[in-house]
């Protein structure tokens, strides 16, 4: 890490560059880069029973994917995580875009108040949000049930968080409720960046707001669409807090809400009767690393290189 800097020592030694860079580089390397690499290394080892570790190559990964002890949980968590991501992607981002489009309209009253209020849930801790929704949806309190009755759909009320078929979907929607502020703000900022003259010109040419949006604004904010998508992807495959807060470490009912983050936690740290297993934990983290890296690379090379960006 420091070598990078000290290479410059041919001329009068630039001490100040080292002084400027060293604190950040050291903290970042020791607590982030080294642990990531070391954790990946660890995923190729397994305890040998005598306090040491034996190299097993890809053995842990193969176990995780095929051994009956691990594979069921793993594929289940991976699948759930994709479901969780798709719901976020398909609900959070379009609704965020809609809100941003409305907010960025030129003559809108109460714009600042709307913006402030719509962003408020994003500020709260996931734990708090999880518990709030647990209370709202609880059949004991009856808020959700009362609402359903009010709109005449009482017979459709169910304790959704307790049912295997719906718990994951509901949790994904809670996550949408909380984080919608982020895509909204990113889209909003991008929309504000579009010069008025362009919109004006389109209006003069007789385009209606719908056409202006899809014909002019949307193509111009495509880079933000990419950024929002990759942020959602990384955030969702790294999610943990919400599931843990609402459903506990076992991600019930019957593991139906287990995602990679909760699987990682149980595998590494242990939970109730299950003992923690650092090397298998590192393996799950390694899998998450590859999934996230895959998404990021796809974004960088598949999307960013190929979309047309317009200079505004």
């Amino acid at each position: 890490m420091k070598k990078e800097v000290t290479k410059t020592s041919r001329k009068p030694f630039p001490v100040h560059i080292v002084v400027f860079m060293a604190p950040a580089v050291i903290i970042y390397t020791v607590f982030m880069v080294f642990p990531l690499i070391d954790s990946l290394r660890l995923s190729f080892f397994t305890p040998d029973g005598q306090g040491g570790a034996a190299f097993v190559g890809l053995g842990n990964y193969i176990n995780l994917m095929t051994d009956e002890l691990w594979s069921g949980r793993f594929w289940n968590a991976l699948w759930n995580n994709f479901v969780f991501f798709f719901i976020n992607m398909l609900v959070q981002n379009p609704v965020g875009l809609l809100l941003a489009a409305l907010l960025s309209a030129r003559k809108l009253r109460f714009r600042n108040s709307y913006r402030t209020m719509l962003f408020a849930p994003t500020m709260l801790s996931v734990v708090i949000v999880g518990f709030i929704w647990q209370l709202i949806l609880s059949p004991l309190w009856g808020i959700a049930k009362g609402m359903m009755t009010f709109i005449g759909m009482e017979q459709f009320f169910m304790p959704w968080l307790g049912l295997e078929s719906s718990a994951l979907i509901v949790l994904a929607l809670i996550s949408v409720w909380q984080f919608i502020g982020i895509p909204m703000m990113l889209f909003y900022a991008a929309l504000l960046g579009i010069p008025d003259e362009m919109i004006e010109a389109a209006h003069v040419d007789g385009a209606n707001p719908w056409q202006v949006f899809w014909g002019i604004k949307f193509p111009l904010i495509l880079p933000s669409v990419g950024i929002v998508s990759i942020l959602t992807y990384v955030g969702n495959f790294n999610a943990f807090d919400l599931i843990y807060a609402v459903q506990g470490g076992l991600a019930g009912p019957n593991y139906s809400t287990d995602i990679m983050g909760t699987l990682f936690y149980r595998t590494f740290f242990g939970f109730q009767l299950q003992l923690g297993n650092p090397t298998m934990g590192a393996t799950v983290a390694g899998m998450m690393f590859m999934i996230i890296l895959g998404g990021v690379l796809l974004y960088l090379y598949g999307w960013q290189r190929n979309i047309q960006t317009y200079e505004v």
Partner: protein
Amino acid sequence: MVNQSSSAWQRWLTQTVLPHVILFGYTCVALFPIFLVIINSMKERKAIFKAPYLPPLPDTFSLEGYATVIERANFPLYFTNSIVVTVISLVLILFTGSMAAYALSEYKFPGNTLLGLYMALGIMIPIRLGTVSIMSIVVSMGLMNTLTALILVYTAMGLPLSIFVLQEFMRQVPRDLKDAARVDGASEYRIYWLILPLVSPALATVAVFTMIPIWNDLWFPLILASGESVKTVTLGAQIFLGQFVTDWNAVLASLSLAMIPILALYMIFSRQLIRGLTSGAVK
């Protein structure tokens, strides 16, 4: 889809009324659950269930939930811990991050680009994935169950994005300014110190971006600092809520206690915060 021949009336409806209906509707969705928890936290148990939508009235008003929370959970301590961790991490991130960003944007040295890329890697790769090794490092440093461990991890977590953003802003500071200072014999450290106030909007943006995830994090407190004396608010609330699930007054009160300070701060600073968020995103 409105076409040109549509009446002014219809246009008014779709372009003025409809946006407000949607925005107002979604605002209700966003705020109603929060509102409901806060009003019910100040009511007696019976009223919470019987009339959940009513605000606390003289005959239903009760603070018994808050009394339980104050008696059973050490929220002032949790708050102090969270504030200590967040503030110190933030100061470290802004200080070390701005120094690094300054060096990367100001000096041409071999490996500059490479070092910049190296520091940017952490923007997309979550630090959580290194937890197994972070824990053994923290254990070997004897920092298990200390706030120091959290501070170091959060500093590492916040650095990549802050360096990236600050670098962009520091590039925009006019060259002449720095050269003038150099001619006057100012040291490089002095020049950095002079530049810093010029990028204060960027520092504010970075502070916002990094503060929220640190304050709200559950993962690292759970794994590195779960002892009673070092619990943060997020972890403290999680454990307290888990134990008191059946005591509705206490649950509602503790949720409100955890939310109100954040919401109050947010209301005060929301304009700056949102300006920071949007300018940061454009930049």
